[in-house]
């Protein structure tokens, strides 16, 4: 066990930066797969802040929350990639901008 010398703040700052990078990626990229990866980036940023606050508060339930986030992320990736596969079957090389069928 490494002695708690840093505190939660550097980890929280890194988590904030990772989350923002994920948002920028989600907003700028048009490939649905890469957008999905940016979503994973944001989930990881939140997980990092969960773990650092769990240590700061000395409460293991923060780590349990990360466990559930991991499970939900896995389920979300499976369903999302299924949707992406069926979209790409219909239209080769589709980007997120081409999927405007439900636009009003």
């Amino acid at each position, binding site marked *: *066990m*490494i*002695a708690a*010398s*840093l505190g*939660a703040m*550097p*980890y*929280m*700052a*890194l988590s*904030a*930066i*990772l989350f*923002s*990078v994920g*948002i*920028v*990626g989600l*907003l*700028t*990229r*048009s*490939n649905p*797969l*890469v957008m*999905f*990866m*940016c979503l*994973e*980036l944001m989930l*990881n940023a939140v*997980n*990092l802040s969960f*773990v650092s606050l*769990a*240590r700061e*508060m*000395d*409460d*293991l*339930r923060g*780590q*349990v929350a990360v*466990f*559930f986030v991991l*499970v939900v992320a*896995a*389920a*979300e*990736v*499976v369903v999302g*990639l*299924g*949707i992406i596969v*069926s979209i790409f*079957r*219909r*239209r080769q090389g589709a*980007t997120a901008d081409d999927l405007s069928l439900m636009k009003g």
Partner: protein
Amino acid sequence: MELAVFIVGAMVCLLGAYGVVTSRNPVHAALSLVGTLIGVAVLFIAQDAEFLAAVQIIVYAGAIVVLFLFVIMLIGVDRSEDVDVEPLAGQKLAAVLAGLGIAVGLLSIVALGSVTGAPPSSAPVTGDSPNTEAIARVLFTDHLLAFEITSVLLVIAVVGAVALARHRQAALVDEDHPGDVVPDLEAVDSQEAVR
């Protein structure tokens, strides 16, 4: 010591995140994502979350990224994306500005805010029992219902993925866009054989 681990882990994380956002090739983005995930796992270990670090490597780097690469190869989008195309004028600039705004907001919350909340619970991180055992104790006592519901969620996800990705010719026809010709099954198969 922890500072050195943090700096190295943070560098790996940020470089990986930069790679995910900027690389033109989806395969490179997926590999950069592995870098970020491993960096986050290192930071988990630095914060006494050994079990989560192992799960992070196994589930994320081992399963989710492989799934990503599998889909990239399956649908053949491993060619480079033209990142210079901007369907909406000024979208990239607006996105970067929005990201910067969110970063500044979150960082100021981190810098100015303080940790509040309930006092430490009956399950401390720095307890006598090892991390995995302590997590198991909390998971299977306080959070047993959530854990069981998780299994239902996973079953639903598996069934949904099979229903979505199954080859069904009728389900592929887009009635509003008859021009979108459904790729012939045999043609697709021969294409994949060539590839």
